[in-house]
């Protein structure tokens, strides 16, 4: 890393070059657990967006008051407070969804993406940078979750968002919506992302050596 990234750079970085799911391999528990259909994956991404945004802004506001040895505790407390808010909101307005997601909403507290962003970005940068970083990272997380959920739902049930898109003749691969399917889908998608990144890097290297 050379110069300190600016706010728009932080935003872009979260979406693809430093995608939390595929490039940093953070927050794997929800990535695998709530991706058996698109709806719960997007709800989860929304919840993470809210918590990460609020926590990043809050930590950035109090960054000058933080004592180094107590900072992780402070981050966790801030995150836990916002997660409680999200959990109550979901239980009030989206009751069935909150029942479906079950313990994975409270588990956002120990999601490494959020603690990681508070530590890496929010505790050092201004509010604007922290906010754009939070939005970029959560959009990246949402892309990661929904790509996995898309493949799992369409192969496992032939549906997307509960609407049938594949013909009735399609035999539903039930294994894809069961736990093993999550590991397979994520493993294969991660492999293809790695493949594309490698190919891009080698083509850049080849072009540079031609010059």
């Amino acid at each position, binding site marked *: 890393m050379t110069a300190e990234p600016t706010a728009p750079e932080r935003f872009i970085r979260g979406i693809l070059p430093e995608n939390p799911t595929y490039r940093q*391999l*953070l927050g*794997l*528990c929800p990535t*695998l*657990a709530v991706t058996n259909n698109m709806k719960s994956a997007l709800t989860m991404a929304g919840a993470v967006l809210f918590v990460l945004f609020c926590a990043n802004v809050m930590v950035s506001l109090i960054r000058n008051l933080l004592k180094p040895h107590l900072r*992780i*505790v402070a981050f*966790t*407390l801030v995150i*836990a*407070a916002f*997660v*409680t808010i999200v*959990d*109550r909101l979901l239980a009030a307005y989206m009751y069935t969804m909150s029942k479906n997601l079950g*313990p994975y909403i*409270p*588990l956002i*507290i*120990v*999601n*490494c993406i959020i*603690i990681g962003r508070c530590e890496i970005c929010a505790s050092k940068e201004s509010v604007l940078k922290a906010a754009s970083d939070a939005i970029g990272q959560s959009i990246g997380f949402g892309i990661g979750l929904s790509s996995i959920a898309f493949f799992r739902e369409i192969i496992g049930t032939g549906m997307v968002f509960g609407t049938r898109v594949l013909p009735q003749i399609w035999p539903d691969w039930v*294994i894809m919506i*069961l*736990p*093993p*399917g*999550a*590991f*397979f889908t*994520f*493993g*294969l998608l*991660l*492999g*293809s992302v*790695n*493949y594309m990144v*490698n190919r891009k890097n080698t083509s850049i290297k080849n072009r540079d050596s031609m010059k």
Partner: protein
Amino acid sequence: MTYITDIFLIAISAALINNFVLYYFVGICPFIGVSRNVDIAFGMGFAVTFVMTIAGSISWAITTLVLVPGAPFTRFIAGFFLDPGQAVQIDLTTLSYIVYIFAIASSVQFVEMYIRKFFPSLYKSFGVFLPLITTNCAILFACLTIMSHVAGVENPADVWGLSKALALSFFGGVGFTIAIVIMAGIREELDFCDVPECLQGAAITLIVAGILAMAFMGFTGVDSGLRVALTGG
């Protein structure tokens, strides 16, 4: 008799059938990150089991004594300010997440100090993993599962006692250890395999974990069969 059967079934279910890692996907980070070597994986599993048992029983105690409506401690404190009818209605379960995360963080800190003082050799073998465990989702997941069986249960007979909470948290940790040690064993062999370049590292580990999860799916239904065998009906 049925109580002991229940505890036995909770233990089997937490360790094998609904394995924390392979069924609920909690604790995936150490499962991928610290499973290169069987000895280290075993140390990690042991540390998680240790902390999970302590944190699980602490969170059971806090939930039962302080958080649920009509809990003795809250009733006692509120009794000074409110009349008894209002005091039993106080419901503090909204605070549970914040309380649990503090209970986990402080029990990790406490366990670390205790082990450093009294078991220096043990500290050397798994001391480095202890701070990491604070942010391990498996521990918080165990606490939340216990909470879901203590708070908001309609039938008072279904509320879990301490022994059930202990069984869940200890055998959940055992299940984590089983999964991570098997994974480390496979990965040690995987080093000698010709894996395509793009799948190396985390990707092939996830695919192997998928096969492992399929194997663990074979345990599905064992609990109901065992219940029939043990209670005769």
